[in-house]
C-alpha cells in the first residue's frame, strides 16, 4: 500500500506522489510516516524530508525550512515555508 505524499510551499505544489515512507523532521523528533498512519498534526523544524520509494531505497532528501506536517486519511501533506533542492 502506498502513501500519498504532498509537499506544498506558498509558491507552488512541489510534489504530489505515491511513496512508501517519508521521514519528517518534527519539532519533537523525527517520525516516519507509512501508509495508514494515525492522523497527526505536527510542527516541523528546519531539516530534511527523507522520501522512501520502498523499504530500503531513499529516492529523495528534501531540505525544508519549517512548516507543518499533517497526516490524515488521505495521506501526508507537508506545508513548508521554503524548500531546497532535492538531493
Amino acid at each position, binding site marked *: 500500500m502506498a502513501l500519498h505524499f504532498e509537499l506544498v510551499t506558498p*509558491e507552488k505544489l512541489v510534489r504530489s506522489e505515491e511513496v512508501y515512507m517519508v521521514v519528517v523532521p*518534527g519539532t519533537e523528533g523525527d517520525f516516519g510516516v507509512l501508509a495508514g498512519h494515525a492522523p497527526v*498534526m505536527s510542527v516541523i523544524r528546519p531539516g530534511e524530508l527523507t522520501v522512501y520509494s520502498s523499504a530500503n531505497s531513499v529516492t529523495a532528501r528534501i531540505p525544508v525550512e519549517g512548516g507543518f506536517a499533517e497526516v*490524515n486519511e488521505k495521506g501526508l501533506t507537508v506545508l513548508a515555508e521554503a524548500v531546497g533542492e532535492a538531493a
Partner: protein
Amino acid sequence: MASLKALKNRISSVKSTQKITRAMKTVAAAKLRRATDAAVAGRPYAERLEAVMASLASKVTIGPNSPKLLAGTGKDEVQLLVVATGERGLAGGFNTNIVRAARIKADQLIAQGKKVRFYIVGRKGRAAIRRIYPGMIVADHDMSHAKKAAFADALEIAKDLIARFEAGEFDVAHLVFSKFQSALVQLPQTIQLIPAAVPQAANDGPRGVNAAVEYEPDEESILAELLPRNVAIQIYRALLENQAGFYGAQMNAMDNATRNAGDMINRLSIQYNRTRQAAITTELVEIISGAEAL
C-alpha cells in the same frame, strides 16, 4: 483649419502612441498569464492552511490565554488598514478602485469614532492616501524592487505587522486589495487580517475522523505557529491577486487605448484627405483663373 503639415504630424504621433499601447497590451497579456499561473500555484497551500486552521480553531477555546492574533486585544480603537496597490499606473481604474475601497472603509471607521492608520504596500496608493488622510500613514512597504510578488515580501510585511501589533500600535487590521475575478473584472476587497478571521469549521458534519488527530507539540503551540504564517499567506495571496488583477486591468486599458488611437487615426486621416483635396481644388482654381486672365 489645421494645416496639412500639422495634421500629418498629429497622425504620425498618434500612430506611434498606438504602437506603444499595443506593445504594452501584448506585454501585459503575457505577464497576466504568468501572474495567474502563480496565483493558481499558490492556491493549494492556502487552502490546506485554511483547512488546518479551521480544524484547530474549533478545538481551541478562545480564552484570556489564547494567542492575541486569534483573540484580538479586546479593543477595536485603533484600526489599521493595509492597502495593497499596484506599483505602476496605466492600468485604467485599477489603483483608484483600491484606494476608493480603502476610503470607504476608512470613512466608515472614522464615522464610528475609531482611529484609523494606514500601512501602504505598493507605490501607487501612497500619494493618494497621503493626500486624503495626511499624517495617518504609519509605514509603507516599497515593492518596486520586485518584478513579481514573492513570498519573502509577504513574510517581511507580515513580520512587521505582527511586531507592530504586539507593540500595541493597533487593535484590528484590515487588508484592502483587488480580487482577480477575470482579466476584465477586478473586485476591490477588504478582509480582516488581525485578529484572524477563522474560517468556521463545519461543525454539523461528521468529523469523527478529526477527533482522533494527535497534535505535536499541542494544539495551542501549533496554533501560535500557524497564526503568523496565516497572516503572511493572506498578504501573499493579496499580492498575487493584485498582480494578476493589475495586468488584467492594464491589458484592458491598453486595448482600449489602442482602439481609441485607431479611431483617432481614422478621423484624422479623413480630415487630412479632405484638407488636401481642398488645397488641390484651390490650387486648380487659381491656375485656371490665372490662365483665363491671360
